[in-house]
């Protein structure tokens, strides 16, 4: 091969290598924080009510390793979550997904506060209205009585 061709081939190779390096998924260094965030949403399957992030059990530790691997391979946190839900069902999410029937548990507390406030407001309105209610005007003073009072007050001074 002529030198020009060799250089040409070499530069093609170099170009190819650079392009593939740029387009390939690099092994992303995954911060423990993201692993913790994802793991905190998943239920540890051998514990009672602990998250995968919190649980000291071996199974949880293995699950965290799986999360770490998948995130490093380029999956998004949502993908990782979906992977677990595919295998364990909705049960593995520590908070029920906000869809369909589950909306009941997410909304009902606020509805309860709203209802409570509405009832309280209605009661308070009724109670303050009663207080502010019409008071009968003080009876008119008889003029003779008022003169007598004036005389007695003056004499008492």
């Amino acid at each position, binding site marked *: 091969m002529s030198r020009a061709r060799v250089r040409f081939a070499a530069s093609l190779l170099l170009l190819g290598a650079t392009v593939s390096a740029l387009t390939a998924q690099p092994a992303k260094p995954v911060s*423990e924080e993201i*692993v*913790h965030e994802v793991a*905190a*949403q998943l*239920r540890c399957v051998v*514990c*009672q*009510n*602990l*998250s995968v992030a*919190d*649980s*000291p*059990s*071996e199974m949880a*530790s293995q699950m*965290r390793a799986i999360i770490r691997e998948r995130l490093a391979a380029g999956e998004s946190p949502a993908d990782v979550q979906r992977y677990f839900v595919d295998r364990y*069902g*909705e*049960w*593995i*999410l*520590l*908070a*029920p997904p906000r869809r369909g*029937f*589950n909306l*009941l*548990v*997410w909304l*009902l*507390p*606020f509805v*309860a*506060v709203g209802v*409570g*406030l509405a009832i*309280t407001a209605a*009661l*308070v309105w*009724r*109670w*303050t209205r*009663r*207080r502010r209610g019409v008071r009968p005007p003080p009876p008119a003073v008889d003029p003779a009585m008022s003169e007598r009072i004036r005389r007695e007050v003056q004499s008492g001074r």
Partner: protein
Amino acid sequence: MTADLGFGMTLVALGLALYGGVASAVGARTGRPALVESAQHAALGVFALITACFALLAYAFLTFDFSVRYVATNTNLGTPFYYRITAVWGALEGSIILWSWMLGLYTLILIVRHRDSARELYPWALATMLGILAFFLVVMTVAAPPFQRQVPVPADGRGLNPLLEDTGMITHPVALYLGFTGFTVPFAFAMAALITGRIGDAWLVLTRRWTIVAWYFLSLGLLIGGWWSYHVLGWGGYWAWDPVENAAFMPWLTGTALLHSVMIQERRRMLRLWNISLVILTFGLTLFGTFLTRSGVIASVHAFTQGSIGILFLGFLALVLLTALGLVAWRWEALRSQGELDSVVSRESAFLLNNVLLIAAAFTVFFGTVFPLLSEAVRGVKVSVGAPFFNQVNVPLFLSLVFLMGVGPLIAWRRASLENLTRNFLWPVALGIAAAAAAFVLGVRSLLAAVTFAATVFVAATIAVDFVRATRARLRTGEALLPAMGGLLRRHNRRYGGFVVHLGILFIVLGVMGSHAWSVQTETTLKRGETAELAGYRFRFDGLTAVEESNHFKVVGAFTVSNGRVLDVLRPAKKFYPQEQAPIAYVDYRLGLTEDIYLVLGDFTRDGTQATIKLQVNRLVSWIWIGGVVLTLGALLAILPERHKIA
């Protein structure tokens, strides 16, 4: 022999309790004080018998009497002395004895305190207490007999659950149960009031101190449970929104609402219907709590067992709720008060808002706890409702309550004038805003943390404003400083006790906020001699040692912690108990005022050259425990007998 004697005593106690309940009720109905007297004697007998059962069981534990099945299951020859005593209430059967014993104790105190002071209500209250006591004795005889025989008698027992080998085990159940059972007494008086029709304020005034005491012990039990979880269970947290934790939290929430709404009834003679319903609801929730712990209906860390006991508890809960609420419906007309409020801007309104928020929070916790069951019933799909849900939904409610804590004590009764509002709240609001700004300047970027911090400063400022103003008023009369402050606390102990309790809550809020917003953690595998770094600390893995203890085998890791200079050597361990399937992680920690360092040992290699550890630096958690101490002082101050009756 022990087993038969114990069983016999339980049966006799049950008989006496049933007799006493009926006798007291009949005596009240027919106006025969002699019958009520005999019921009192029966109550005394019940308490004596339950105490004897307790002592007998403790004796069986101390002497390694494995012929009693309960002893054989919960202890073995290696169990240390003091844990053998606390193991008495370490499992289901013992917990029922503890509960019954406390009910018996409270019944006696009720007799001594109220036998002469509440002639009409007393016999019915006594009958209710004995009736409830009888139920627990039925559970003790039928569903969870502590004195069942173990045949053949084993040479060694199974052993105590290693997680229970801790000082928290001694205090947590005791405090919690004192709280739970404490709410039985207000309930008993509420029933007495409903049955006799004397639904005025007498029954409420009588039970005020009971409510505070019960509420305090419940708070204490919850806090000790949090402490226990934090330093034993190895996950670095103190509250997991576990169903059984929730079951204890719900009566605490309604109990707090009750503590505040009774003040409205005392001052303004309003909300009778509401208060009586709240008492019934709180007691019902305590029963719900024991049901949840023991029925296995919802999976939980605490669940003792499943079986017939769940059905018994559910049945009793149904009986109590339907009877009590039925009585409320029956007395509806008499209970409804002609409420009157002077103004929307008043302390009454603040207390009403407080109640709405607390009940909403209790409802949230309740619905979240039972939702998995509902989802399965309706959709056939199992879902989990855990910490992320509860934290998200409850935070706005609790934050609002913190704000209210600052407003309520200072805003005027009846009608708060503009002058009253500015005088009391100008400084606190200004300081709150300044605090939020300071937080922002110091680098706090979480809105929630900043708002929470502002709220706590606001409330603390309101407490300070009130105290300073009141002390100044006293100083003007010529009193010296310390006597002025002391006199203030003593004379108005209810008010200032409340303030101190609020201060304790503030510290707890700070601790919760700090731990959620600013804690960091990481997990890493280290070879011997390698170091990991977190939050300015360096952790060097020094090696593993294996230790043989009396009833378990322990692998301890040594980690040197330094931040420039060597601070400590922490030794998290893994304990292997023969009766447990998986090893128990034993954390080691270094507590501080602003930071806790927390280490959990994970996997390790056989030769001890490599270990995986979970590192945590938790911020401000110690303020939760400090808050608990302050809360205790406040509660003690609040229940002191009053020097002068407040006009």
